[in-house]
């Protein structure tokens, strides 16, 4: 590589003129350029083979792109010529590259990417040929030049998007002569790195950014949409959905941002429906949710609603943790509970032994506590979502403990009003939340959409647990279990409503439908929002507009019942023990009876003594004779 580039100076002058006349005389340049460039390139080959090969590879593409730019300007609209470099004749390119190698590298890399965005499908094939095979490239460039001539000789350099018309890879694979393996120049290295980066496959699927861009631009050029840039954005979205690995890093960033729900949009629609907090309050809630998302690894997050209280109100956020990131506090609590239960069992056994020894057996109570229905695993069933509460936006969020079935079942007919100090136990609140949240009657989903749903609430958990099974485990404890068994046989399975039942099938409350549906504005029905209001839980609203819908609850947290509350009656009086002779009392004898008895006894005694005396007299008389 010793020959200096030919004619460094004379060509430097015309390019300035050419630069100025670049725009106007582009086509003339292009037509004239191939021929003089051809012999020069042949000379320049040994000097910087790969450098030029790359630049040559870039040039014709640039030139072609220029033609295509002009031809497609009407379509693409507002195409900027990437840089003045593109207008330079090919002879000067290598010199400029030599002078400002690094900058040119980045600029050209930028050019390449700009061209990528402009939607030139043939570019990739040319790039591919340029990158993959540096040696055949040069000849390939010559081939391309020849092809260029052929094409330019046609009327109009407008290149159709059909890839078959472009240079097929088979042609480029033709290597009539071999070249030395080029040493990697910094430019070439940068280019290789860029391509390697583009080719790396994403984690989730097998496509790489490179391939995806190829597909994207091919699709655009095939469809020739009106506004390619905006279509590009939507196509990008389509490709994302179809599993393209495009910009996996971008995806992650978007996902992290969208963990916070669009509270303002929901608030807007709810305001159309006449429900909801004021817009600045909604914004504060939005900020508070954002704070929650930043502090806890929650995704996704949703504003569930507001529960009014006596002294303060609760703002409730419904979240679901990302997998594997839950705190271990619940496990500790479970262990403690299990330990407690284990302690009870041996106590019972000891008690039974003692009682067996006792002759006077006190009757054992017949009541056995109902078997403890285990609480559901986190992230499933009623504990699918976690709830955070705070009093005012800006205050720290408190996490509510997961709900257990014993909390839900008594929460059903609850009548206590919610106190709002944070220190008070929130078991009521949690049970109420899940029984409200899990009831399909309080969630409205647009027909046709099937998002993640909380399952129905039955028996306090979402899958029915057979209490009889529990009893069998406890049979070892004693004979009394048999009696308990008989009592439990009559338990029927609670069947919960299946998910996503239509609202029309909800049970009526006293001849009143449990839901009221309205249009937000009757004056222009095509733009109005559908609102559904619950009659069973006053304060539960849902809106639907097109494909967007959302549920919210703002209220006291009480179910409305047509019946007034009646306190439970006391239990019926218990029966006394039947009067068995053992426990029947005998009346004490009165004084007269005792005296009469005594007198009778004395008489009997006296009579007995007389008889004895008579007998003795008889015996004495017998002796006397």
């Amino acid at each position: 590589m010793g020959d200096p580039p030919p004619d460094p100076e004379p060509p430097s002058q015309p390019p300035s003129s050419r630069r100025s006349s670049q725009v106007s005389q582009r086509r003339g340049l292009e037509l004239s350029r191939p021929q003089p460039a051809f012999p020069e390139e042949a000379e320049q080959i040994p000097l910087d083979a790969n450098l030029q090969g790359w630049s040559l590879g870039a040039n014709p593409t640039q030139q072609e792109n220029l033609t295509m730019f002009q031809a497609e300007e009407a379509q693409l609209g507002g195409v900027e010529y990437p840089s003045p470099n593109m207008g330079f004749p090919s002879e000067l390119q290598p010199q400029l590259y030599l002078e400002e190698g690094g900058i040119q590298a980045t600029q050209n890399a930028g050019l390449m990417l700009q061209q990528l965005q402009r939607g030139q499908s043939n570019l990739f094939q040319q790039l591919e040929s340029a990158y993959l095979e540096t040696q055949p490239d040069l000849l390939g460039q010559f081939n391309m030049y020849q092809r260029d001539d052929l094409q330019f000789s046609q009327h109009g350099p407008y290149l159709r998007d059909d890839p078959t018309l472009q240079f097929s890879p088979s042609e480029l694979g033709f290597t009539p002569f071999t070249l030395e393996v080029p040493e990697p120049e910094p430019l070439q290295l940068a280019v290789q790195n860029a391509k390697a980066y583009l080719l790396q496959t994403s984690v989730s699927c097998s496509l790489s950014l490179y391939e995806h861009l190829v597909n994207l631009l091919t699709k655009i050029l095939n469809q020739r949409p009106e506004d390619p840039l905006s279509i590009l954005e939507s196509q990008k979205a389509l490709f994302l959905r179809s599993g393209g690995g495009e910009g996996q890093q971008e995806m992650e960033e978007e996902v992290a941002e969208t963990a916070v729900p669009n509270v303002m949009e929901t608030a807007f629609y709810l305001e159309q429906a006449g429900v909801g907090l004021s817009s600045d309050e909604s914004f504060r809630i939005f900020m508070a949710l954002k704070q929650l998302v930043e502090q806890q690894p929650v995704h996704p997050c949703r504003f569930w609603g507001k529960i009014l209280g006596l002294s303060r109100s609760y703002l409730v956020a419904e979240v679901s943790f990302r997998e594997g990131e839950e705190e271990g506090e619940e496990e500790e609590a479970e262990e403690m509970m299990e330990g407690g239960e284990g302690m009870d069992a041996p106590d019972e056994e000891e008690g039974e032994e003692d009682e067996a020894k006792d002759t006077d057996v006190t009757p054992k109570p017949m009541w056995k506590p109902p078997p403890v229905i285990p609480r559901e695993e986190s992230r499933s069933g009623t504990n699918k979502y976690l709830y955070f509460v705070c009093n005012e936006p800006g205050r720290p969020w408190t996490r509510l403990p997961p709900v257990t079935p014993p909390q839900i079942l008594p929460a059903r007919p609850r009548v206590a009003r919610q106190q709002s100090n944070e220190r008070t136990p929130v078991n009521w609140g949690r049970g109420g939340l899940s029984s409200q949240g899990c009831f399909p009657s309080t969630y409205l989903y647009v027909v046709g959409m099937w998002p993640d749903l909380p399952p129905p609430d039955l028996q306090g958990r979402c899958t029915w647990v057979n209490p009889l099974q529990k009893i069998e485990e406890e049979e070892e404890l004693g004979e009394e279990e048999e009696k308990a068994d008989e009592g439990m046989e009559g338990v029927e399975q609670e069947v919960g409503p299946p998910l996503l039942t239509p609202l029309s099938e909800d049970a009526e409350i006293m001849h009143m439908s449990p839901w009221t549906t309205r249009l937000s504005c009757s004056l222009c029905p095509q733009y109005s929002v559908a609102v559904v209001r619950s009659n069973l839980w006053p304060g539960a609203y849902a809106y639907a507009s097109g494909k967007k819908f959302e549920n919210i609850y703002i209220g006291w947290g009480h179910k409305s019942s047509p019946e007034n509350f009646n306190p439970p009656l006391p239990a019926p009086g218990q029966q006394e023990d039947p009067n068995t002779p053992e426990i029947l009392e005998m009346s004490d004898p009165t004084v007269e009876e005792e005296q009469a008895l005594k007198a009778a006894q004395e008489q009997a005694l006296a009579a007995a003594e007389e008889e004895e005396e008579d007998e003795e007299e008889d015996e004495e008389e017998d002796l006397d004779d």
Partner: protein
Amino acid sequence: MDAESLLLSLELASGSGQGLSPDRRASLLTSLLLVKRDYRYDRVLFWGRILGLVADYYIAQGLSEDQLAPRKTLYSLNCMEWSLLPPATEEMMAQTSVVKGRFMGDPSHEYEHTELQKIKEGGKVFEEEVVVQIKEETRLVSIIDQIDKAVAIIPRGALFKTPFGPVHVNRTFEGLSLSEAKKLSSYFHFREPVQLKNKTLLEKADLDPSLDFMDSLEHDIPKGSWSIQMERGNALVVLRSLLWPGLTFFHAPRTKNCGYIYVGTGEKNIDLPFML
């Protein structure tokens, strides 16, 4: 809430979750102004909204110069056309006390109620089942009246009584202070006093006859039927009634903004004593 400051009042009262949609607000702004002009009221209050199954009632009240005089009540189904309601009578109250359940939303709807009536025929007295029809309009009137008498409130100092008798709006009322705003005794029932005369002379001596001429909320039965909260970090005090859930009273301390609105189903919470 005063129709003059409707937008601000609606925003302050929005903490309870119920408000008005923008189209209703726009209609109210103009139609209430028209009502004030046509009926020549001194002040028009937007009373609230009663949620029915089919439609909602929007209620407005017109006041004359004397604030404690009986108010005229109007209702509308679309916030644009208002109809005057008849004043409430004892008979109406007795009649509608048997009706339970939600409002239908149709003013001509009639509730049927069967009751035993003693009918004298000749010399005999026997009972017969009679079906009584009660119009929803009547029920509406009596419910509004009940709510007004039970839970309509006003802060102390907002009205003053002249020596001649009429009660006027106090133009120099600058709002309650923060400490006063948290006490139930600073709020009065917006109606003729009932319990005032039961106070001892000692207590009465401390009262200002021009300002303290109404019953305060302190002695309401059941005790604890009011929930006082500060919202927006002490910038707004909100009182909510537990006896008639849906009534919200708001007041921004140290400003003149105050008012109440009822948005609810129109049912009294009779189970309140069991809940407290």
